[in-house]
């Protein structure tokens, strides 16, 4: 019996779905911890520091867990003037939007909660709902810093949604499918052979370099990380739209931020770096090896984002908008044109 013939389902659709969603949720929660740890450690070593050292006995590995527990213990404050219902719901909306992205990301040919035909469309649409949560948080906090931060975030996320979508669209055109599994499979198809060895290349190396650059820039902006962290901007707005949050609700924003970093890095890995596909390994084994492969590729992207964070200062709001509307969107459109042209002609 080969791996591909393994029956990974129970036969009951709803039971399958619940199990898969639960696994994806656990996956998101647990994966955020090593990423937080990586951020602490990687940035520390880039900055002449040691980073967490004592928590957990060695290397400070338990630091993210300790931080999480600390958040759980803290009082969940709601400002007196805040719109309590909206204020309390906002972090949930942000986390939900992020979580919903994980549903369609394939970690292997079958290791995916639901492989939709409109996977990438669903993904980009559902992740935009996060903006709503951010606006809710900014508006309901009854704090001017929160309000400015929330509006900045909304402006920024809308501006960078467009280049993100246009860059993804270029990939969709080349692959001829919106299904994320389909996109990975399209990248796995051999382009040519050297001797008798079939060679296939990820989209990054077959004409999608511009889309890749646009997508990664827009992704960093979507994540509101330095140099695009205007919505937070500690030195101006104290903490932007999360200024008033504390305890578990702050932790939810925090978790949502890291979860969406992981989610979008996985998307980059899927769209441009070949996803779970890897040469040499036979296709039968991809269900087992695939998750590790795609996470390895995603972790490269995550490292890149952390690297950027410790290198650059933040942009100004107007510079940020100029960059999106004057540079990225026209570039993405031209790129789309070129890709379509090549697709039609070749």
């Amino acid at each position, binding site marked *: 019996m080969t791996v591909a013939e393994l029956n990974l389902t129970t036969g009951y659709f709803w039971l399958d779905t619940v199990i898969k969603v639960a696994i994806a949720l656990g996956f998101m929660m647990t994966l955020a911890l090593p990423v937080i740890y990586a951020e602490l450690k990687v940035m520390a070593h880039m*900055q002449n520091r040691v980073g967490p050292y004592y928590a957990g006995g060695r290397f400070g590995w338990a630091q993210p867990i300790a931080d999480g527990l600390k958040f759980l213990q803290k009082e969940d404050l709601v400002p007196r003037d805040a719109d309590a219902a909206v204020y309390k719901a906002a972090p949930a909306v942000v986390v939900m939007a992020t979580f919903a992205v994980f549903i369609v990301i394939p970690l292997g040919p079958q290791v995916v909660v639901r492989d939709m035909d409109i996977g990438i469309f669903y993904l980009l649409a559902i992740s935009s709902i996060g903006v709503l949560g951010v606006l809710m948080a900014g508006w309901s906090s009854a704090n001017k810093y929160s309000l400015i931060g929330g509006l900045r975030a909304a402006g920024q996320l809308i501006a960078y949604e467009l280049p993100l979508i246009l860059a993804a669209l270029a990939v969709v055109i080349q692959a001829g499918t919106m299904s994320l599994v389909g996109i990975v499979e399209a990248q796995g198809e051999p382009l040519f052979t050297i001797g008798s060895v079939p060679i296939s290349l990820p989209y990054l190396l077959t004409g999608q370099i511009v889309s890749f650059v646009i997508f990664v820039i827009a992704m960093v902006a979507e994540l509101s990380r330095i*140099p695009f962290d205007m919505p937070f901007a500690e030195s101006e707005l104290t903490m932007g739209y999360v200024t008033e949050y504390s305890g578990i609700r702050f932790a939810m924003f925090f978790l949502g931020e890291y979860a969406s970093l992981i989610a979008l890095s996985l998307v980059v890995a899927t769209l441009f770096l070949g996803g779970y596909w890897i040469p040499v390994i036979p296709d039968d084994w991809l269900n087992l090896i695939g998750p590790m492969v795609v996470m390895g590729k995603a972790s490269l992207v995550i490292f890149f984002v952390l690297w950027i964070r410790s290198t650059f*200062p*933040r*942009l100004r709001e*107007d*510079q940020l908008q100029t960059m999106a509307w004057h540079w990225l969107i026209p570039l993405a459109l031209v790129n789309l044109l070129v890709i379509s042209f090549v697709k039609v002609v070749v």
Partner: protein
Amino acid sequence: MTDMDIAMKHRSEVAVSVELQTADMTLNIGPQHPSTHGVLRLIAKVDGERITSIEPVIGYMHRGYEKLSEVRTYAQITTLVNRIDWVAGFASEVPYIVAVEKLMGVEPPERAQWIRLILSELARIASHLVFMSSYPLELGAITPLFHALRDRERVLELIEGVTGGRFHPNFNRVGGVKPNAGGGKQTRNVSMDIPAGWFAETRETMEKVLSVCDDIDTLVVGNELFRARTVGVGIIPAAKAKEYGLSGPNLRASGVPFDLRKEEPHLPYPEVEFDVISTNTGDSNDRYRVRLAEIRESAKIVLQAVDKIPSGPLVAKVPRVIKVPKGQAYVRGENPKGEFGYYIISEGGQKPYRMKIRSTSFSNLSILPWILKDQLVPDLVAILGSLDFVLGDVDR
């Protein structure tokens, strides 16, 4: 079109524009806020992201040093004055002690003057390195902080090695500096002042400081985004800078090469070679680059001074109980942040009748309402940070 029509058209336009006008939001920045360096409060009226007017409120950190000085003896006041600008504690001691010496007619020995010079320059390096680290941090760049503060710590260790204090040296005495080994008659004659090996360590540290300057040059000044955030932001023309009484690097960045170390030296600055750094534009980027270049110049001065320092006594002959004759004196010196002056009025006796402190940051901040008007909120932080102020220095 008749007059009536024009009037009607005008009225309708007015009506429309009135209708669309939205109320400005009052944004209260501080006193507790990450970018106000302590307890500065800015009441900003903002229209979206644009500031329409701003009113700085100071005094949250008023410690009454001028009043306290009236009930302290001259020797005790040195403890107060180095707490005014705590980032460069030693530098704010020097003009005070020189003013007292001037009133008493005491000339400190050569070696004491050179030690004052070296420590003042070390204080300048420490202060500017804090700026090198805090300013990029305000713009969102985290990494330069750790590089600059690492080497600032080395400089503080040097200061500690001589004076015993990292921040508050309290090292100046009327007529010289504190003799810290043995004491008594012996120290007056023989230099038992600087710890063994300190000069060699200073040379080494200055090399490290110069190399961190190169790091900052490539990491921060050469950074495209840093340039985008600072070039052309918060331009202060030379005339405006003079009008508001700016001094120090803020003034020199606007193209006025005015440096009290050259103009009115009360330490042996004429005997060392250094350049007065000035740039032309007067924007935030220039203010950053001027300070970076000044660190290099200061390191140069320290390296020269370490070679030139003569041996000799540390304190001139002064009475045990310091009594200052009747008179007044104003002495100003080039603090890392700019002109720092003390105006002492003595009615005779052990305590000053009145001491006015001309602190640098207070004057440097007076330009805020002018410079921050019509700026964007993100630029507020970029401009505010570039003025390099310390709240203790503003409120005294």
